[in-house]
């Protein structure tokens, strides 16, 4: 890989491969609305015929193409923006008087809660990921994401999670405990009657699954599919910000997943984690904010990346101190995992830990200083054009400065002692988060021409900026002034009523300004001028070097930065280079020599599996209290999920890995394997959070003051047997792998069957143990020792149960694999044993988890 790309003046693209739009063979003659270009697939592309055109509904149901999925994300997230926004207008109206009028009690709480959840989860991140889907592959020079079907799956899970959330409104009442879902208000006993709250929790779980799938996908793509010559640090800043965002997502959302699963279990199974007097409340706060603080950067980083791109383009300057900008972002991403307790300064955490977290919090604000200054200095000697995207980015930077300064106030613990729970916090985080959203709206104007091929109306765009910027400040600035108002109340100090009324006026100005945006985009889509390939002077990243909108295959050749700037190689050149390069290590699970064409872009299974999950979750939410209809629904959904999963694996769906790519630091691990590893890393955090919760509760209870909660001390035997069984099953998988290498079909089958039998033995043993505890009649536990008996039983059943679920899933996969092994699927071809290896990685991981559960739950 070339290491000297930073030569000062344009290392001019090697003559013939010039990337400038004018000299490209297939030119920029996009004259005919967005559609034509996409459908005009390069001649000889066989699959063109079975991929429906963009005008059809079917296209949008089956597509797995990253650009389509990007558009779906963008449109859907804007829908949720409107949904959440209308709720906000509703309660802003309520706040025009200082006492309750039309929206009070639980209804008010539902409105603020749903607003928060919708905006943070269903709008901000998906909006950013609409752009990420569309532009990251383009900026990197990839044809698509690594796992296109999983990408479509992420989208459908997201959409239907939103649907599930919407459904919760119709089930009596949606969740009403605030977007932070503090315990124990998040439990059924304190929430409004009905299934709705549980449904909302399930919707959140579904959303988190979508995020996790998407993180794995993006990480694999971004690490292994960059164009030749593009090192990680050479990625455009938008892509860079997305890379760091997905890394944070991978780990942070895993913690949230654990928290939500525990919460769902408290709702559905009746475990008592968050009701526990010793530490239940604090446990939620820790789990939530361990996720929650990284989350604020997860929603902000993409906006920062977009700001950097827009600044560079419209100032005509490369960003100042690029290296330091990237270093600062990386530092923030890492540090974001060790500041969470600044949301808990007023709880009973001790002074030492407060001091520590105050220091880390202030530490994390400093890299932001650097980034802000870098953006400002980038303007110097620029040729600044005040287009709509730039105005939004510029405005967003200004808002971020205000938000950041007020955040430093909160970082000072003594001040936070007074600010906590007030409108100061509300104003602070709206300045940063909605400020970030402003940058993203700018990015929408910036990339609109690329996505549609049409130019938006500049005047309307500027009007939108002016109105929204004024509206924003009118909306949030008064909240600083009226900061003593408690959050989430409709009954507040009458002396602040004027400020709140101003704020409401601002909310309407801000909200209505978006009508301009929607109108602008609608009108321009139909009557706008053609944008051409590169409407923005000084834009430099690769998406501007291809038609607007880009073709299905993205690039006219294979992108490469080997010469220091973008060029497109022909197939022959690629083969030459790949050969010289040693080729992709042992990649190519498909063994397809023609990395060029033939990729599939359509599958129904992502949609269908998501529907199955939706049905399953609707049912699960009501199994405790909703009646048998719900149980039946859950069963139906579960079966449907199995069916769609089978359909998914049976479907032949071809995706090729690029032959020529920068793959640091994962050369030599093929995409699927890397995907499995990354997924396992997030699962480490899920289990880590479960084990951490157990440890936390037990420490709060008094570590050694625990055994009286158990039916009997240290019952080692069942755990011991299960440890032997699992270890043996790991061993037999290894033997199956060895057999596959020796091309011994019988050996593979024997190994897998042994694993299956041992796994079943594990579950049976566990079943016996559980049923024994359930029906115990001891002096202390006359009613048996069940899920809800106490914290010890809750942590025991749920942690080992989660592990048991992993075992069960593994066994289902084995049931699938054994007949295939019998037919020789893993022994007949060169790379045929890969699936065995992937399964092994998962199975050993499940084994490793048990190795820790065994001493924790059976000995200590």
């Amino acid at each position: 890989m070339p290491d000297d790309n930073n030569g000062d003046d344009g290392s001019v693209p090697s003559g013939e491969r010039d990337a400038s739009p004018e000299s490209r063979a297939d030119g920029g003659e996009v004259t005919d609305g967005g559609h034509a270009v996409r459908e005009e697939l390069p001649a000889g592309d066989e699959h063109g015929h079975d991929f429906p055109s963009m005008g059809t509904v079917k296209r949008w149901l089956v597509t797995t193409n990253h650009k389509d999925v990007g558009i779906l994300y963008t449109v859907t997230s804007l829908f949720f923006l409107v949904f959440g926004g209308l709720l906000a207008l509703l309660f802003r109206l309520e706040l025009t008087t200082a006492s309750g009028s039309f929206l009070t009690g639980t209804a008010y709480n539902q409105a603020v809660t749903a607003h928060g959840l919708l905006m943070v989860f269903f709008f901000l991140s998906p909006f950013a990921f609409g752009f990420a889907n569309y532009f990251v592959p383009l900026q990197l020079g990839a044809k698509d994401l690594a796992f296109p079907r999983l990408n479509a799956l992420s989208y459908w899970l997201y959409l239907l999670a939103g649907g599930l959330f919407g459904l919760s409104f119709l089930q009596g009442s949606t969740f009403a405990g605030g977007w932070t879902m503090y315990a124990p208000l998040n439990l059924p006993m304190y929430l409004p009657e009905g299934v709705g709250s549980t449904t909302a929790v399930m919707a959140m779980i579904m959303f988190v699954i979508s995020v996790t799938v998407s993180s794995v996908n993006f990480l694999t793509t971004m690490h292994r599919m960059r164009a030749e010559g593009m090192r990680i640090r050479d990625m455009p800043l938008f892509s860079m910000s997305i890379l760091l965002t997905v890394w944070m997502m991978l780990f942070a959302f895993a913690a949230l997943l654990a928290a939500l699963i525990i919460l769902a279990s408290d709702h559905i199974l009746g475990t008592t984690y968050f009701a526990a007097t010793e530490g239940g409340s604090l446990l939620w706060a820790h789990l939530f904010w361990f996720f929650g603080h990284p989350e604020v950067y997860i929603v902000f980083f993409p906006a920062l990346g977009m700001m950097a791109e827009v600044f560079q383009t419209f100032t005509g300057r490369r960003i100042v101190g690029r290296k330091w900008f990237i270093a600062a972002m990386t530092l923030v991403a890492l540090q974001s995992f060790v500041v969470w307790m600044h949301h808990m300064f007023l709880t009973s955490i001790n002074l030492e830990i407060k001091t520590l977290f105050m220091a880390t919090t202030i530490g994390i604000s400093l890299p932001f200083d650097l980034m802000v200054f870098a953006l400002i200095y980038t303007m110097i000697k620029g040729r600044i054009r005040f287009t709509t995207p730039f105005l939004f980015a510029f405005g967003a930077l200004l808002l971020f400065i205000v938000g950041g300064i007020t955040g430093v106030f909160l970082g000072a613990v003594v001040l936070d002692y007074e600010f906590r729970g007030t409108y100061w916090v509300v104003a602070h985080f709206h300045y940063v988060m909605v400020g970030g959203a402003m940058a993203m709206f700018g990015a929408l104007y910036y990339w609109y021409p690329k996505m549609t091929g049409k130019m938006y109306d500049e005047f309307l765009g500027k009007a939108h900026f002016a109105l929204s910027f004024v509206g924003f400040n009118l909306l949030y600035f008064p909240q600083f002034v009226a900061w003593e108002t408690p959050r989430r109340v409709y009954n507040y100090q009458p002396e602040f009523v004027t400020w709140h009324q101003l704020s409401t006026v601002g909310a309407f100005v801000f909200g209505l300004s978006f009508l301009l945006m929607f109108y602008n985009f609608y009108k321009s889509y139909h009557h706008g001028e053609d944008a051409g390939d590169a409407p923005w002077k000084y834009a430099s990243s690769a998406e501007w070097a291809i038609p607007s909108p880009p073709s299905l295959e993205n690039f006219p050749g294979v992108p490469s930065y080997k010469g220091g700037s973008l060029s497109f190689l022909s197939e022959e050149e690629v083969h030459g280079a790949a050969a010289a390069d040693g080729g992709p290590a042992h990649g190519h699970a498909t063994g397809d020599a023609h990395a060029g064409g033939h990729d599939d872009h359509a599958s129904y299974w992502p949609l269908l599996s998501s529907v199955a999950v939706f049905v399953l979750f609707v049912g699960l939410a009501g199994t405790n209290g909703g009646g048998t209809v719900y149980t039946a629904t859950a069963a139906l959904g579960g079966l449907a999920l199995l069916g769609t999963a089978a359909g998914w694996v049976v479907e032949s769906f071809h995706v090729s890995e690029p032959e020529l790519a920068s793959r640091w630091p994962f050369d030599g691990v093929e995409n699927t394997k890397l995907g499995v590893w990354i997924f396992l890393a997030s699962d480490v955090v899920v289990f880590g959070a479960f084990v951490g919760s157990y440890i936390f509760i037990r420490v709060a209870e008094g570590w050694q003051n625990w055994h009286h909660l158990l039916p009997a001390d240290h019952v080692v035997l069942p755990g011991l047997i299960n440890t032997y069984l699992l270890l043996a099953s790991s061993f037999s998988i290894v033997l199956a792998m060895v057999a596959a290498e020796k091309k011994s079909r019988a050996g593979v089958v024997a190994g897998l069957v042994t694993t299956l039998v041992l796994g079943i033995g594990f579950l049976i043993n566990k079943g016996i143990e559980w049923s024994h505890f359930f029906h115990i009649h001891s002096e202390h536990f006359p009613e048996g020792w069940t899920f809800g008996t106490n914290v010890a039983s809750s942590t025991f059943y749920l942690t080992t149960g989660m592990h048991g679920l992993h075992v069960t899933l593994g066994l289902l996969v084995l049931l699938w694999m054994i007949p295939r092994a019998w037919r020789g699927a893993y022994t007949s071809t060169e790379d045929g044993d890969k699936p065995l290896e992937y399964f092994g990685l998962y199975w050993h991981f499940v084994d490793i988890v048990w190795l820790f559960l065994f001493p924790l739950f059976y000995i200590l």
Partner: protein
Amino acid sequence: MSGTIATLVTVLQSDGIIPRGSRVEVFDAIYWVFLVLGALVGIVVIGYMLYNAYKYRDVGETDEDAAESKKVERPKLGELPRGGGGGRKLFLSFTLSAIIVISLIAWAYGILLYVEEGAAEEPPTEQAEALEVQVEGYQFGWRFTYPNGHTVDSAVGDSFKVPADRMVRLNVTSADVFHNFGIPGLRVKSDAIPGQYTQQWFIAEDPGTNYTARCYELCGAGHSDMTATVEVMSQEEWQNWYEGTGNETETGDDGNQSDGGDDDGHALEDVLEEPVDYGMEVHA
């Protein structure tokens, strides 16, 4: 790092830069310093931003016209991204802002220690013996229990009566969900968490004034109305009132005490310096 901060704090304290006094005084001092400095920094930075945006606006000259712009390199389509130089200036301003932020926080940390000291058991300097009150939030109201076991409940319209110019130390907990007890006028606030005890303190200065205590953490349908009146009395007045309450200890026996008090006795002991009749003993 923490060592430096600690030294800094000692230096600051010895010079009397750390404000002392009631919570209101402390807060005012620090809030205004932050506000003025914050506004100043904000104005300078934003002003500089606007100035540059104006100065370097595109005036429509062509590339050829602008002779000097030849010296400035512009991004090119398809280039590998790289930086635009200017690192030194970046570091200078970064260091400057870091110094401002860190010293502000170090100073605020000194104040934190002062505030925390008040919440801990040692009686504060030259103050009269502090008054210990247990505050218990519940859906939806506040219960205040005095050392003699007398309990007042905001839900029945009782006010929380406190003596002026005497430190009041709160030991805050909750009977059900997470609440947050705050008296904005007295600049005191503390989480009320089931099963946990948090300590805060305040000093009210003006007898005859009433304040409103509010709940600052969403706690259910009645969260908005979860207020209590705090009534500041002169010391003698308060003493008279308080002495009149001693013999009705039994009336505290409406179940309040068992809600959160009993199961965490050790936290209570921390706060009680001399064994007083705390109502609990009545039950025992």
